[in-house]
């Protein structure tokens, strides 16, 4: 199935201004978020900055990843602003070689999770607006300094989240016919399409850029590092790129060398990103529920720690100590059960990708909960904003009772998403073990299946706890 050949959808996606139009929609949303955050009401549940950012944006982002692919990177307004900036100043520098990798993105991803908790960002409209402004500023500064999509590839924490989660998306950009790529001599998909000969002198002008993240289509495997920007589709002179359906998550057990990435088992930084993505999903959800609030209160009062210290300890335990212990134990168990002499780190890197489907299920259950229970609040808040702005109810008096689904009715969906994610993780463990251990596959897989079970049960236990409706209530 190739969406680029579908009626309506296909022509729209191939339209050269498709991305710009999506970016402008999200840019308009960002402008509304910033303006209302700075000048609107302080109450988080009546401000579009907090509600659109922490309820709708996060929820819709996960829905899009699970339903299609990395659509929010496709429509990212930061890139639109960056492109406008590059019309004034074109960067010449390449991103420093020693900074290539995901370490900065991993650190920022963890920092965003910690900052969100530490400063109660869900309750602070103005701070949310400044965060959005800061994000735009960072993207512009990085990408006006360095060539390509340096910010997306190495810095953006949301982008890193999207890259990992998109490995379980049902769509990917890939070549249609390998022979066509084999005979291609221009590699426009990665280098960009040049102006016809004679148009310029020595160095032909690029009229359509290729992949800014350096993904060469014939060697591209899966969605990692793909922003779904469709630049390759626009650049390919042979119309040989499809937006095709696939088996979600299968790429996580694919050990081929990938363009721009290499082999997954060789990338310690990618393994770290997956660890933060996976254990961060549980930690982020755990910090929402009553037992976590009680634990924090106990640590503050009985240990005499500040809230910042308590959160630092919890994040250290949740994102470093616990993963190190659990993954290490699973790796040593696999070695002992199979007689494999591979270093434990290598065993971890082989299997760590299997955590992604379960973690994506947890993120979807968590953010989907907020989205579904608060889906309609955007209506009365918008009505109220217009009322505040104009003094007249041009959109009607706020329908404050429009909120969303009852939380109890969302629970089966949450449990189902976690369960589905656990199935996906089991599938990846099985495929990985079969790939690397052959006849010993079940011995190799057993510790990782136990780990998947443990994490799935932890996720369900968290979902069963009373949840604080932060950002929604007054």
């Amino acid at each position, binding site marked *: 199935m190739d969406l680029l050949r579908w009626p309506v959808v296909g022509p729209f996606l191939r339209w050269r201004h498709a991305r710009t139009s999506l970016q402008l929609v999200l840019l308009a949303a960002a402008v509304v978020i910033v303006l209302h955050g700075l000048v609107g009401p302080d109450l988080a549940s009546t401000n579009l900055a907090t509600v659109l950012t922490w309820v709708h944006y996060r929820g819709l982002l996960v829905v899009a990843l699970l339903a299609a692919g990395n659509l929010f990177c496709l429509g990212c307004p930061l890139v639109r602003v960056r492109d406008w900036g590059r019309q004034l100043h074109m960067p010449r520098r390449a991103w420093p070689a020693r900074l290539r990798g995901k370490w900065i993105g991993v650190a920022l991803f963890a920092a965003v999770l910690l900052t969100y908790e530490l400063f109660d960002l869900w309750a602070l409209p103005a701070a949310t607006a400044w965060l959005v402004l800061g994000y735009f500023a960072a993207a512009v500064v990085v990408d006006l300094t360095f060539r390509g999509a340096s910010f997306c590839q190495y810095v953006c924490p949301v982008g890193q989240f999207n890259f990992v989660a998109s490995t379980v998306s049902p769509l990917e950009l890939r070549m249609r016919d390998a022979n066509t790529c084999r005979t291609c001599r221009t590699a426009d998909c990665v280098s960009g399409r040049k102006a016809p000969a004679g148009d310029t002198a020595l160095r032909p002008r690029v009229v359509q850029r290729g992949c800014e993240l350096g993904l060469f289509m014939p060697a591209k495997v899966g969605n990692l590092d793909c922003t779904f920007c469709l630049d390759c589709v626009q650049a390919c002179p042979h119309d040989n790129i499809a937006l095709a359906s696939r088996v979600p998550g299968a790429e996580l057990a694919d050990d*081929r060398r990938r363009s721009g990435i290499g082999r997954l088992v060789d990338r310690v930084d990618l393994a770290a990103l997956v660890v933060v993505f996976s254990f961060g999903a549980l930690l982020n959800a755990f910090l929402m529920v009553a037992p976590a609030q009680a634990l924090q209160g106990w640590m503050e009062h009985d240990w005499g720690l500040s809230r910042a210290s308590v959160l630092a300890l919890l994040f250290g335990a949740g994102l470093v100590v616990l993963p190190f212990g659990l993954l290490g134990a699973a790796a040593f168990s696999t070695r002992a059960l199979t007689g494999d002499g591979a270093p434990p780190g290598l065993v971890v890197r082989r299997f760590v990708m299997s955590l992604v489907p379960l973690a994506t299920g947890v993120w979807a259950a968590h953010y989907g909960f907020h989205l579904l229970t608060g889906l309609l609040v955007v209506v009365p808040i918008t009505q109220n904003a217009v009322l505040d702005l104009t003094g007249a109810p041009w959109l009607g008096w706020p329908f404050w009772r429009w909120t969303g689904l009852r*939380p109890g009715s969302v629970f089966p969906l949450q449990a189902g998403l976690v369960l589905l994610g656990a199935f996906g993780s089991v*599938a990846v463990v099985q495929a990985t073990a079969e790939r690397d251990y052959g006849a010993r596959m079940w011995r190799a897989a057993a510790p990782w299946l136990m780990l998947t079970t443990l994490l799935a049960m932890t996720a369900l236990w968290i979902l069963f706890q009373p949840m604080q*409706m932060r950002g929604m209530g007054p």
Partner: protein
Amino acid sequence: MSQAFYPARHLACALIVLLLTSTTRVAAHEGPPYPIVSNHREGPYVVSVWTDPDTTDDGTAGGQFWVMVQQADGSGVPAGTRAAVTVRPLEREGPALDAEAEPVDGDPGRQFAAVVLDHEGWFSVTARVDGPLGSVTVAADVEATYDTRPAPILLIVYLVPFVLVGLMWLRLVRRRRQMAASAGH
């Protein structure tokens, strides 16, 4: 031909059964609150009342109310300003329920109270604000409803589609891996 044994599939099924039978405690999430009184100017105050009116059978105070108070000029109310909420059933006989509100994070402009709403239906809600600036009362009606999760047996029914899709996913990933292996990847 002997039937293939797939330990992963059996483990997944065991996991489902284990999870469903181990989850005996069902506690409702708190629902998204909404205002029943919005920026109502009364005396020296501007009062809003937000509520999350959950009916409960186990004595949990599921009827939650946030009383938001500020001065008419938009500034904060002085310390010592207290709020209280009284809830009375409208559709049947029953006692009025009083609850003193407590400041949230020490902020007298944002106070929280909870009462037990033991049946579904409409209740009248009266919020009183007393403080150095004076005393005022605002009133509204609210409809309380249960917010319970499905019973375990119903939950199993709801989860069946996820299990079916999950089993299909297991099969597809494995088949994909085997195809890749046979293709020499």
